[in-house]
C-alpha cells in the first residue's frame, strides 16, 4: 500500500514537473526535406550561422516567439546559453553587420505553428504538447 502511495506521489510529482517544463518541439513545414536536425544545427540556424537547411537547397526562415515569453527564454538558454538581453545584443550585432536576416516574430505559439505550416522554409520552436498537426517535428528538446 505504501509503495503504491509512493508511486502515486512520484507519478504526480513527475507530471507536475513535466507540466512546468514541457519539452520544446522544433518544427518545420511538412515538405521540408530533412527528417531530423541536431541540436547543434538548431543553434546554428537560430543564431544565423547556418542560413540553409543542412545538405539541402532550402534557405531557412526562422520564427521567434515573443521575446518576453517564457518559451523564448528557455529556448535560447537551452540552445545557446543566452539570456534574452544577450540575444537582443547578438541580433543587433548580426543584423547591422550585414550578416543576414533576423527571425520573424510570431505573435504566439499558434501563430508560429500556422506560419510554419504554410511557409516552406520556416522553422520554429513551440511547446511539444501543442497540437502539431500540419507541421513536421525535426527535433524534441527534452527538458
Amino acid at each position, binding site marked *: 500500500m505504501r509503495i503504491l502511495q509512493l508511486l502515486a506521489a512520484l507519478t504526480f510529482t513527475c507530471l507536475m514537473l513535466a507540466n512546468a517544463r514541457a519539452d520544446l518541439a522544433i518544427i518545420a513545414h511538412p515538405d521540408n526535406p530533412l527528417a531530423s536536425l541536431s541540436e547543434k544545427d538548431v543553434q546554428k540556424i537560430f543564431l544565423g550561422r547556418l*542560413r540553409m537547411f*543542412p545538405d539541402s537547397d532550402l534557405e531557412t526562415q526562422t520564427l521567434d516567439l515573443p521575446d*518576453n515569453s517564457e518559451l523564448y527564454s528557455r529556448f535560447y538558454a537551452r540552445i545557446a546559453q543566452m539570456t534574452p538581453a544577450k540575444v537582443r545584443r547578438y541580433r543587433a*550585432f548580426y543584423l*547591422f553587420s*550585414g550578416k543576414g*536576416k533576423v527571425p520573424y516574430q510570431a505573435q504566439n505559439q499558434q501563430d508560429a505553428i500556422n506560419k510554419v505550416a504554410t511557409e516552406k522554409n520556416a522553422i520554429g520552436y513551440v511547446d511539444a504538447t501543442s497540437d502539431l498537426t500540419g507541421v513536421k517535428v525535426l527535433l524534441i528538446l527534452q527538458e
Partner: protein
Amino acid sequence: MRNPLIYLLLMAIPCQTLAFDDWAWSGFASVAGGKTNRDGLSFKNYDENWSFDADSVVGLHLQGDLLPHLSFTAQIVAQGYHANDTDQYQPEVDWLFLSYQWSPALRMRAGRMRTPHYLYSETINTGYSYPWVRPPTNVYTFFLTPFYNFDGIDLTWNGDLGPFELDIQVFAGAMDGEYAELDIKAEPVGGANLTLRGQQWLLRYGLIINSTDISSPGWHIYQDAYRQLALFTGDTLFNDIADAFEANDEPYAYHALAAQWEHRNWTLLAEGYYIDNRGDGFANTSTGGYASVLYHTGNWTPYITFGSYYNVLNEDAIQDLEDSYTTYPAGTLGPQAELLRSGTLDAFRSFKSKQRSWTLGTRYDLFTNTAIKLEAEYFDFLADTTGLMIPAPDARRPKDAVLVSFAIDVVF
C-alpha cells in the same frame, strides 16, 4: 569618387521583384555626450566643454530577398564624428551589397562593406550591439576611419572543426578615404579572418594587406625643398626624407587577434593589433590592445577595461633627420633649410603617441531596444606625447586626462 560598382548595385534592384514580406527596414541611433577635464586637448569631438557630436549617430538599414539565395542589403549612416569636419551628420553609404548563398556553408557578398578589422568593426556605429559607450579606443582608433569601408567582394565559409566551429572570411577590394588633409587610397586590399568558436569562447585572427597611397597637396613644397637640398648637398639622405612625405603603393599589413570567454555572469574580451609598414615612403607602425571584464546582473552590465596604444609615424625619416645633424650640424644649411629641417622633425615627432587607459563604466538595458551607458576613461600619456588626444597648438601638454561620456543607444 568611390567605386562606381555601388551605383550599379543600386540600379540593380529589380522593382518588380519587391515582395513586401521579404523586405524589412530597421535602424539604430545613439545620442552620446562627453567632456574631458583638460583645456586644449581633444578626443574625437570631445574637449573641455560638453559635446554631443562625437559618438552620436543614426542609421537606416534595408534588407530584402531578390531571388532564391540572392539578397540585397543597404545601410545609410550619418554620424557626428567624421575625419573631415565638413561631413558631420552627412548621410553616407556604409553597406550596399548583394549576397549570394551558394550552399549551407558558403556565402558570397559583393558591393560596399565595412572592413572587418576587429571584432566590433562592422557594428562600430551600432552602439546597442556592444557593452561600452564606444569600442575601446586603444584598438578602435579613429585613425582607421578612412578605412572603415571597402568596395569589393567577400566569401564566408562556416563549418565544424571537431567539437568547434570555424568561420573563414576572405575578402578583396579597394578603399578610398580622407583623413584631415591627407588623401588615402588602398588598392588592392586583401584580407582574411579566421574565427574558432567553442560553446563559451571564441578566438579570432585577422590579417589585412593593403597597397596604400597617402599624399597631401600641402606637403609637395616640402618634398620639393628636400629634393633640392639633396641636389645641393649631393646627399641622398634628403631624398629619403622627401620620400617620407607620401606613400606610393606601400604595403601595409594589419594583424589583429581577439579572444572572448564567457562564464556564468562574466565575459572577458581582449583584442590586440599590430600594423606594420617599413617601406621607403610615409610609414606607420602601430600596436594597441585592450582587455575588458564585464559582469552581467539583471539589466546592468558594469565593466572595467584596460588598454594601451603606441603609434609612430616615419620612424626611419625621424632617424634620418636626427642623423643629418651629425653630418650637417645645426646652422650649416642656411636659414630656410634649417627651418625646414627642424619643422619637419617636430612635425614627424608630434605624430608619435603612446598611452595607457583604464575605463570604468556600466551599461543598463532600459527597454528591450534601449540601452544607457555611462563611463569614465582615464588616459595616462606616455613618452612625452598626448596619446590619442590631440593638443591645440601651444596648449599645455598634461600627463593625463579623464574623459567622461554617456550614450543612449536604441535599435528599431
